[in-house]
């Protein structure tokens, strides 16, 4: 511990940490633009400057380490003026489009201008005019709103290992773009939306399908069915200014009915279904000498990633559709049949923590006979917006339950929302399938937590099982390279596109730091701890679905409805 003086007050700090981190703990908020939690500082924007006694110039707090006896002043005239100048310069060529901007009210740049009291334009720069990139089914880019902070580029390259975007050109004409300045849809972008989460402005946003969904809700000839993913109920409250970590499952179901959805289903149900199929597939691969390690297939960003960058590992990927697509397929088959409805009369909407799901539902394999299993995907953020649009106060809702037959879930399906959850759910069921007994204690601590790579080596009934869990495609690369180099102690790998899993998905509420993501995660495990049905194979509606409709896991009908295939793609060459 070392001691500093901040604005005349003495505070304690850890040796080696930056001024910014030390101040944050003290409740002193220093604005940042280019800084990214967990990555080395780039020091590009200088909005975070403070005055340090003895230093000739203002000091960027995000990159400068604390030192014993250091005297810091955080809000002197000089500091405030410097920050104002930076924001004024950033605004000098900005489109001033706040009213029509996807970030209105949630924009870091807007907030900075507001906080610093900037009320008029001082500098008149030449406005850059660059077309929006609306080519992607998931991500919209509006380069005119970009302030070139570089966070999206670092996210895409350093965390996600994709590098779909980079700085193009130089000087005043520099911008963020793809290779050959083409649409994101033909780039290597995996639609993860992590760049949206770190963008301080409206330059990046999800493609919204709210208009399509509200039109469907207003159409009396359509039955509009909605499913919500495991990680949505633990984050939606944040769209209503409630601190991260609250579960609003029941209120959300009520709100969805108020908005006019005819049926509300829980994607955690089809997560249970995924476990039944996937655990059976794993057992079969192990028994018949199939390709191992098997890799999970629920995260569509990862699927595009493997198709592009590791096509040789495609045979390792489970053929199971993702829970969203399994639910979609069941809605347009079993459910449609049960209701006596033509599938084309059903509009299937899903609420996802994810932007890549928007891409996934457009994949041709996901639309048998040209009828898509899922018609529209809304992110958690868009659901928040929809509820605000319809004047619904989530907090005022009384809890309601999801509809049968796809509304009941085990908590194993629920913990899919956190990195490690799919593996834990699968191990619970695999243990039962292999031994006829439940896994003692059920909880598998080594697979939990926000670490990017986790492993578990256990013996079940004399069978050695090596399981690995990675999240974030940069972490995935490390493990996949090991597998390509012949590592053979693993049978099953869970891969999630977003760091930490769906609780930190690209469609989740903005502005969440690591603590917020941890709070979301804790809530999922709390739900798991407190409920009775904690394994997928005990979900009685799953059993009924197999009895009444599907037959066996991996059976003929399962294969047609619940499994898919992948193919190598050369998007980077297009």
């Amino acid at each position, binding site marked *: 511990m070392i001691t500093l003086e901040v604005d005349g007050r003495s505070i304690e700090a850890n040796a080696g940490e930056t001024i910014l981190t030390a101040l944050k703990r003290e409740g002193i908020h220093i604005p940042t633009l280019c800084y990214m939690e967990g990555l080395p500082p780039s020091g590009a924007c200088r909005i975070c400057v403070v005055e340090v006694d003895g230093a000739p110039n203002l000091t960027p707090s995000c990159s400068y380490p604390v030192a014993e006896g250091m005297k810091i002043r955080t809000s002197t005239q000089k500091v405030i003026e410097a920050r104002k100048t930076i924001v004024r310069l950033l605004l000098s060529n900005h489109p001033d489009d706040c009213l029509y901007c996807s970030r209105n009210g949630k924009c870091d740049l807007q907030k900075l201008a507001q906080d610093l009291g900037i009320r008029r334009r001082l500098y008149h720069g030449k406005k850059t005019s660059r077309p929006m990139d609306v080519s992607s089914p998931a991500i919209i880019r509006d380069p005119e709103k970009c302030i070139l902070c570089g966070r999206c580029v670092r996210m895409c390259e350093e965390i996600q290992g994709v590098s*779909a975007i*980079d700085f193009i050109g130089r000087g005043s004409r520099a911008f963020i773009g793809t*290779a050959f300045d083409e649409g994101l849809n033909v780039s290597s972008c995996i639609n993860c939306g992590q760049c949206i989460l770190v963008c301080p402005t409206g330059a990046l946003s999800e493609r919204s399908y709210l208009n399509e969904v509200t039109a469907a809700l207003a159409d009396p000839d359509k039955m509009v069915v909605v499913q919500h993913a495991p990680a949505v109920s633990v984050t939606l409250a944040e769209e209503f200014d409630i601190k991260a970590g609250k579960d609003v499952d029941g209120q959300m179901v009520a709100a969805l009915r108020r908005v006019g959805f005819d049926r509300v289903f829980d994607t955690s149900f089809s997560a249970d279904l995924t476990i039944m199929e996937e655990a059976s597939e794993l057992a079969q691969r192990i028994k018949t000498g199939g390709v191992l390690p098997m890799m999970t297939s629920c995260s569509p960003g990862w699927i595009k990633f493997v198709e592009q960058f590791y096509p040789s590992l495609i045979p390792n990927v489970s053929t199971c559709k993702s829970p969203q697509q399994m639910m979609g397929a069941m809605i347009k088959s079993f459910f449609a049949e049960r209701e006596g409805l033509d599938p084309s009369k059903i509009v299937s909407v899903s609420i996802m923590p994810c932007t890549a799901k928007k891409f996934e539902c457009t994949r041709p394999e996901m639309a048998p006979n040209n009828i898509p299993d899922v018609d529209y995907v809304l992110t958690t953020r868009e659901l928040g917006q929809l509820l605000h649009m319809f004047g619904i106060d989530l907090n005022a809702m009384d809890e309601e339950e999801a509809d049968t037959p796809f509304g009941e879930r085990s908590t194993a399906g629920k913990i899919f929302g956190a990195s490690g959850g799919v593996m834990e759910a699968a191990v619970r069921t695999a243990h039962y399938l292999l031994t006829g007994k439940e896994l003692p204690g059920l909880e598998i601590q080594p697979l939990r937590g926000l670490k990017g790579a986790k492993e578990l080596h256990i013996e079940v009934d004399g069978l050695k099982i090596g399981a690995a869990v990675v999240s974030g495609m940069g972490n995935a690369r490390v493990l996949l390279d090991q597998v390509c180099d012949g590592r053979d102690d693993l049978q099953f790998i869970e891969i999630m596109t977003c760091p930490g899993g769906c609780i930190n998905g690209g469609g989740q509420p903005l502005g969440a730091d690591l603590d917020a993501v941890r709070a979301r995660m804790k809530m999922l495990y709390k739900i798991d701890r407190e409920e009775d049905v904690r394994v997928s194979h005990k979900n009685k509606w799953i059993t009924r679905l197999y009895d009444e409709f599907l037959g066996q896991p991996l059976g003929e009908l399962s294969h047609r409805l619940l499994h898919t295939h992948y193919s190598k793609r050369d998007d980077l060459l297009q």
Partner: protein
Amino acid sequence: MTDTGIDLILEKHSGAGRDALIPILQQVQAEKGYLSRETVARVGKHLNLPASKIYGVATFYNQFRFHPLGKYHITVCRGTACHVKGSGKVLDMAMKQLKLKPGQTSRDRMFSLEVVACMGACGLAPVVNINGEFHAKVTPQKLAMIIDQCREEELTNAEG
């Protein structure tokens, strides 16, 4: 896809790191006249660099083209001397006549337009170079005429 020209260049740089990027791109451009998607992807595989990064670096320098040269490659000088003598208007005319921006090539691959800084012929300013041939003291009108001539030439070629 195999391309011996590119293969030879990459062979010369086997085991090379990122600092070889610029020399490789220069040699590829010298060989092919421009950097195509395919060549950028090949170079990317060779150096283990993503295509976006290569494109980013290549656009940082002014020397790289991303479209094949047209049959008539028109270079307008924007150096100081030429600028003073009105090369800006000449360039505007070229862009209007050809419906191209600098760095682009027409769909029919007939024309490509490029801008350079000083061709070392300042006495002749403003200077335009077409397929290696210098045109001196070019006015917008004169350039329009030259472009028309190129087009007519093509028509007669096509008929003959």
